[in-house]
């Protein structure tokens, strides 16, 4: 009797299950057979009401994950930028140091070519230097040459892989200099291949120890490259003039490396030279 009761209960449970299943399948099939507009209405109604919190929850999880991913990316980018910043700071400090060394003004934005001196003229007087850069490196004649101490000269001749530099004490080179204190301009030249001198007005108030830089008037050298200091003031044959003997910042015989500024002569000088 008990066994029969158990079977009956099981049958009832199974029957209840079948009924539930039939009902659910009936509803699902009804949905399946609905016309398209009704299906669309039903879908949109559920999406905008019942499913909205679920969508919100899912979107939040996705957002959280995206934020984590973005955070990771930003951390990586931050680390990379920090490295670049350090590198830039290092470069900037180096730039400032080099500019200070060569008295390099900010307005000089010409490319600089570093070159090694590979030869000097064999005579007792050093009037020319040979450097290991040439046309292949973008050098042209009349480009200014300088060192960390100051002006050295100009490019006189250029071959494919080397160039000849005419130094300041070459008697054939004349250039204008500017007294930094008095702003007096004079033409500097060497008469003996050893000393550099410039003739200036006697009343200009130039004193020994005044600093001289290039004036930029000649069209070859840009303004402001250090040339030297006034070593001595010598009276000129003409009373209104006097000669200042210049001690160059850079002793040519001790040079090993020079910088060549890739600045071509100003157009008026180019025309005159041509």
């Amino acid at each position, binding site marked *: 009797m008990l066994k029969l009761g158990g079977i009956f209960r099981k049958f009832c449970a199974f029957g209840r299950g079948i009924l539930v299943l039939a009902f*659910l*399948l009936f509803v699902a099939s009804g949905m399946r057979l609905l016309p398209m507009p009704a299906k669309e209405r039903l*879908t949109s109604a559920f999406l905008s009401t019942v499913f909205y919190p679920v969508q919100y929850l899912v979107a939040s999880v996705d957002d959280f994950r995206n934020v984590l991913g973005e955070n990771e990316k930003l951390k990586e980018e931050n680390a990379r930028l920090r490295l670049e910043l350090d590198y830039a700071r290092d470069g900037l400090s180096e730039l400032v140091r080099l500019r200070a060394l060569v008295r390099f003004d900010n307005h000089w934005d010409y490319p600089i070519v570093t070159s090694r001196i590979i030869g000097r003229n064999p005579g007792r007087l050093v009037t020319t230097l040979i450097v290991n850069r040439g046309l292949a490196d973008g050098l042209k004649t009349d480009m200014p040459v300088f060192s960390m101490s100051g002006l050295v000269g100009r490019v006189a001749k250029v071959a494919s892989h080397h160039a000849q530099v005419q130094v300041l004490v070459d008697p054939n080179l004349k250039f204008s200099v500017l007294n930094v204190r008095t702003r007096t301009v004079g033409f500097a030249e060497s008469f003996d291949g050893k000393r550099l001198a410039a003739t200036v007005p006697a009343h200009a108030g130039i004193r020994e120890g005044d600093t001289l830089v290039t004036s930029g008037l000649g069209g070859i050298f840009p303004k402001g490259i250090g040339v030297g200091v006034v070593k001595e003031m010598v009276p000129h044959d003409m009373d209104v003039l006097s000669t200042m003997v210049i001690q160059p910042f850079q002793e040519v015989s001790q040079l090993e490396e020079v910088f060549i500024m890739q600045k071509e002569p100003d157009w008026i000088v180019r025309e005159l030279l041509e």
Partner: protein
Amino acid sequence: MKKLQVIITIFAFLLCVILQTTVAKWISVFGATPDFLLIFIVYLAFKRGTVVAALWGFLIGFCCDIYGPVEWLGSATIAMTLLGFLVGLLEARFLTLRLSLRIVILALGFVFYDLIYLSLTTLSHSEMTHFFLTRSIPNGVYTVICGTLIFYFLFRSKHRKTHV
């Protein structure tokens, strides 16, 4: 007690929805993703029997339909309801608590679900075959792998009891 079970089931369902909509795509392998909702239904059928599994199958199927193509509305509902009911029936009538059989049931259930679902859609025979080979089989394999891990974790305690 029953209320607690319902609450736990609702939380488990929400967890599965989140897993299915977020985690599943993160862990996809060559486009194959596990079907956590199907694992949930099969598990529910094992644990709660035919009626509960059929009801939850209906609900989950309906959720899938809402986010699926509109013209196929009802297909996943029918397939999932049938799956829940049949797995619950098998559990109640023929099976013991062996894990390996549960895994086999999960694999068969996946195939059953996909066959019913695809047959109720408007896909052509060739499209159905292509879909089954390229999507169903990889997804099914991945689902069975995930299901094995989940079932092992969930049924572990019962296993021990059975063997002791």
